[in-house]
């Protein structure tokens, strides 16, 4: 029986939330108030986490696929499980291609995309063949590295005198409405609403009572790291420049120069990208695999991983024509509207499912009394 510890869950959630998000400058439509938009989205995200963990509380030993079939029945729940699996694959391919593009842009400009993505996928498959526990243990080892690198980057940026804090002023100069507009649904959906994938994994945690607390703590900590990251990006680059660069944090890291000794820290950005991208993509990919495995009661997981990996890599290679199209699909179409894919699967459906579970439970209690 697969079991993971509290710290392993904490590490996975934090790595998942940090994932690619530190590399983007989220919420820059709110200009210098983008950091406030992230804070507001984080508070709304806490509400979503409450919904997800409440669903898990009713079915502690079941994953999302099992829960949907139990609550809605085979004929209504089954297709929804397939849709959720496709959604996890969809977000996974977004992350997968994003990291392929970034590696190609920063480290390996002449290497064909198929080699970069293929290698990345082989590593993911190797880890997933060993099981979810191994992925969790890997997260436990990687989290301190990511945090140390991120915090070091922030400190060195401030020490090198590049940050100009007047760039985040005036605070709420255009009022709160544009900030709220950016926070919901875009930032609530990405990265906070993506935590819905953890409904596939929470059943593996040692003691179920602690799940909500650990998740709140991990999301809160990663949210604060995102806020710091955004403040650093805006104070160093300014809103305009940050908006026009592909990877703002990379530009910030390139500017670090302390007495001509500590400089050229591009490798730090690359390490952050690799670790964050790997966990975010792997958790989504395996979430999709687990959903299909649970629904169709497939015994041989390895074959499912292989087939899904081939489809996954092929889709990532052929669907996204270029980075501009990728960013439009990922940051606009998928998250920015009330009718976006992420809103349906991350907000609307979980809330409705929880309401249905509540009603079913109330009816059961009524029948027993």
């Amino acid at each position: 029986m697969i079991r993971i510890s509290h710290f392993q869950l904490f590490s996975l959630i934090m790595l998942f939330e940090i994932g690619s998000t530190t590399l983007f400058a989220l919420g820059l439509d709110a200009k210098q108030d983008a950091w406030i938009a992230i804070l507001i989205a984080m508070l709304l995200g806490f509400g979503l986490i409450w919904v997800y963990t409440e669903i898990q509380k009713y079915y502690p030993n079941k994953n999302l696929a099992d829960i949907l079939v139990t609550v809605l029945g085979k004929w209504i729940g089954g297709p929804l499980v397939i849709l959720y699996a496709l959604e996890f694959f969809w977000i996974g391919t977004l992350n997968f291609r994003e990291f392929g593009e970034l590696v190609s842009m920063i480290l390996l400009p002449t290497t064909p995309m198929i080699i970069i993505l293929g290698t990345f996928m082989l590593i993911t498959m190797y880890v997933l063949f060993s099981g979810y526990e191994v992925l969790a243990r890997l997260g436990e080892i990687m989290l301190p590295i990511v945090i140390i690198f991120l915090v070091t980057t922030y400190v060195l940026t401030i020490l090198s005198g590049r940050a100009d804090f007047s760039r985040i002023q005036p605070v709420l100069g255009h009022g709160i409405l544009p900030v709220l507009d950016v926070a919901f649904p875009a930032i609530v959906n990405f990265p906070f609403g993506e935590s819905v994938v953890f409904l596939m994994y929470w059943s593996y945690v040692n003691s179920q009572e602690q799940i909500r607390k650990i998740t709140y703590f991990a999301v809160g900590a990663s949210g604060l790291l995102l806020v710091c990251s955004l403040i650093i990006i805006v104070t160093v680059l300014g809103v305009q420049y940050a908006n026009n660069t592909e990877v703002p944090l990379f530009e910030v890291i390139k500017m670090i120069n302390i007495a001509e000794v500590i400089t050229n820290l591009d490798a730090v950005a690359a390490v952050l990208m690799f670790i964050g991208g790997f966990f975010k993509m792997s958790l989504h990919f395996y979430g999709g695999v687990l959903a299909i495995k649970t629904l169709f009661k497939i015994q041989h997981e390895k074959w499912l991983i292989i087939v899904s990996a081939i489809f996954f890599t092929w889709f990532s290679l052929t669907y996204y024509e270029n980075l501009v199209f990728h960013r439009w699909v990922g940051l606009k179409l998928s998250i920015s509207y009330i009718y976006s894919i992420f809103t349906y699967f991350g907000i609307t459906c979980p809330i409705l499912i929880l309401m249905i579970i509540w009603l079913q439970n109330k009816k059961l209690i009524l029948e027993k009394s």
Partner: protein
Amino acid sequence: MINFNTLNEIAKTLKEIGVLPSVLFIGGALYTGILTLFFLVKGIVYIAARFRKVKS
């Protein structure tokens, strides 16, 4: 009244974004409706059961 121009725009956008996101868009919207109906039916059944209990 059905606005065919809007429907045409939606069809064009879905064609542009490809099969998988289109399936997710349509599936997500469809399931929002189905789950709302499911909730309403369960709600009515619950209220009826409660009403019967109070009556008896």
